[in-house]
């Protein structure tokens, strides 16, 4: 075990996979220096600012026997490539009857907190969850990042690696040896019996902080990190809620048609889980607004440990 940052874990995963498989190459507008140094400009391509073209080229190279990684950097920049993502990457395998595979990894940082205003502070993963044919995950720790990223690179479908901007420099233990984490498996970040909190990325850590506070008050909080958004580990979420009878979902994105709405549906549409609910499902999300610049406004828009705490207290009061 060593300590790595979230970002270092991602770079290490890419580097290890690139050493293993010469078919992998990487495209982004600004190459990552250590990758460029090790693999050179043939495999680490510095591209023009032309995300639509890069995304499409990634799809084409994937269908021609390569395993491209297209790094959009911020999710914001992939919106200029929406046709290639939604009409092409997501559908090409299905529409052509599965003739060839399109193993492509897209990387995109998400989230706010940087005072960089509406265009650069987005968490739009539920938009992509809504598109059939894309897998995606959003890890909360360096360990999960590395394991999921390696799995995603080896996957034969398009996968989006959403990565939390807030967590880039956060540290955690990562094993020395090779390991992977399967897509579609949630992780229980803290066991508990009174209430389940389902959270993603940075809010996993906020939820753990809230759980710690409540533990002092004798309340036992279970924190579930789905890690993968598609496919979602509904079983893990349901069995936790069946145990605790209460569910709070924390998400840095807004609530409308969001990840949080999907989790709420997964829980409430299941008769066995619904029967065990002792309180309505509670969501603690960002306000449904573009993210503002001024710190006062931005802080107000995002959920945090205090809002999670307040939400849990409300659930317990019922």
């Amino acid at each position, binding site marked *: 075990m060593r300590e790595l940052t979230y970002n270092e874990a991602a770079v290490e995963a890419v580097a290890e996979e690139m050493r293993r498989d010469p078919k992998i190459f990487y495209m982004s507008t*600004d190459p990552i220096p250590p990758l460029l140094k090790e693999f050179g400009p043939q495999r680490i391509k510095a591209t023009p*600012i*032309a995300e639509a073209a890069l995304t499409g080229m990634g799809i084409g190279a994937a269908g021609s026997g390569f395993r491209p990684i297209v790094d959009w950097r911020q999710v*914001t920049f992939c919106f200029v490539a929406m046709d290639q993502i939604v009409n092409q990457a997501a559908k090409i395998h299905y529409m052509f009857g599965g003739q060839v595979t399109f193993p492509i990894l897209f990387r995109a940082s998400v989230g706010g907190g940087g*005072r960089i*205003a509406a265009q650069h502070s987005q968490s739009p993963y539920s938009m992509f969850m809504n598109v059939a044919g894309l897998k995606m995950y959003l890890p909360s720790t360096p360990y999960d990042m590395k394991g999921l990223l390696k799995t995603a690179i080896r996957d034969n479908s398009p996968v989006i690696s959403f990565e939390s901007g807030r967590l880039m420099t956060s540290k955690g233990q990562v094993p020395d040896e090779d390991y992977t984490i399967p897509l579609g498996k949630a992780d229980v970040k803290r066991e508990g019996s009174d209430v389940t909190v389902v959270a993603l990325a940075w809010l996993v850590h906020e939820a753990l902080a809230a759980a710690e506070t409540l533990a002092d008050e004798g309340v036992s909080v279970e924190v579930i990190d789905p890690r993968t958004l598609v496919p979602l580990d509904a079983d893990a979420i349901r069995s936790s809620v069946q145990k605790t009878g209460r569910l709070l979902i924390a998400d840095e994105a807004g609530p409308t048609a969001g990840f949080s709405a999907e989790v709420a549906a997964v829980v409430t549409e299941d008769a066995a889980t619904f029967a065990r609910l002792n309180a309505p499902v509670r969501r603690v999300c960002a306000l449904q607004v573009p993210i503002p*610049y*001024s710190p006062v406004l931005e802080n*107000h828009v995002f959920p945090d440990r205090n809002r999670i705490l307040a939400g849990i207290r409300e659930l317990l009061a019922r």
Partner: protein
Amino acid sequence: MTNLSPNLPPDKQREMLRKMLTIRRFEERASDDYLAGKIYGVVHCYIGEEAAAVGVCSALDHGDRIISTHRGHGHCIAKGADLKRMMAELYGRQAGYCKGKGGSMHIADFDIGMLGANGIVAGGIAIVTGAGLAAQMEGKGGVAVSFFGDGASNAGPFHECLNIAATWKLPMLYVCENNMYAAQTPAAATHALSDVASRAAGYGIPGVVVDGNDVFAVYQAAHAAVERARSGGGPTLIECKTYRWRAHTERRGQPDLRDRAEVETWMRRDPIAMLAQQLCEQGELDSAGLQAMEDEIAHALEAAVAFAEASPFPLPDQAVEDVFAS
């Protein structure tokens, strides 16, 4: 430097210098205040490129419209934006142009035809082409100007809009500020041709390369393009060869991989010093006049900072305002 003294009134020439100097001093202050934690997020400085914005905007009328990029302070000031409201926006205050919602990357002043800085590379090109379409439909001779970088010239909207504007003869100026880099990536690594302006040929419109540090050269090219646009001749692509003195953003410790000798070579071609020197040689300015200009700008900046500091932060609940039109 280009000599325009016969046909540009001395007042206008001095005004160009004053604007360029204002941009520079504004950004020096913004950078200091950013590092001091009074301005948040990210700040992209335009220092070194002032002649491009001022040269072009000096050829425009109040009613003409422009759009900017992530590096937008210079375009705002050149088009006549209020330093107080700009500074208040950078400070995240209620009195800022965008009520504290936008910050450095998103300053707009629609009253003066400044349609906004934009955080998306090439994100403004189509929008301002729409303003050009509106100007054409209004039929009052208005023009619209798209400012964008060398990096943006590789993005789809640049090509799509040049084609439409050329075909429809829209009253447009496409002004590429070629500062030779897109973040850390040299333009030479991402452009098949060394001149962005030569792409104009593919759309059948004039493409002009100008020394982007020579404000009169920029003005002259812009003036000709504006005349052409106003008279129904259609768009022009103007490429200003210039250079940013600072790193891509003001973030502390941000690497700047450019060759120091290259940076210094360009700094010796300071567009402001070159203009000041020419005005002095022409007898339109002396060192006392230049000092008076500096003092006046320093004063205006102090007033802008004081205004920003005196403006309250927004109230938290204002975060939910303006999502939709009322």
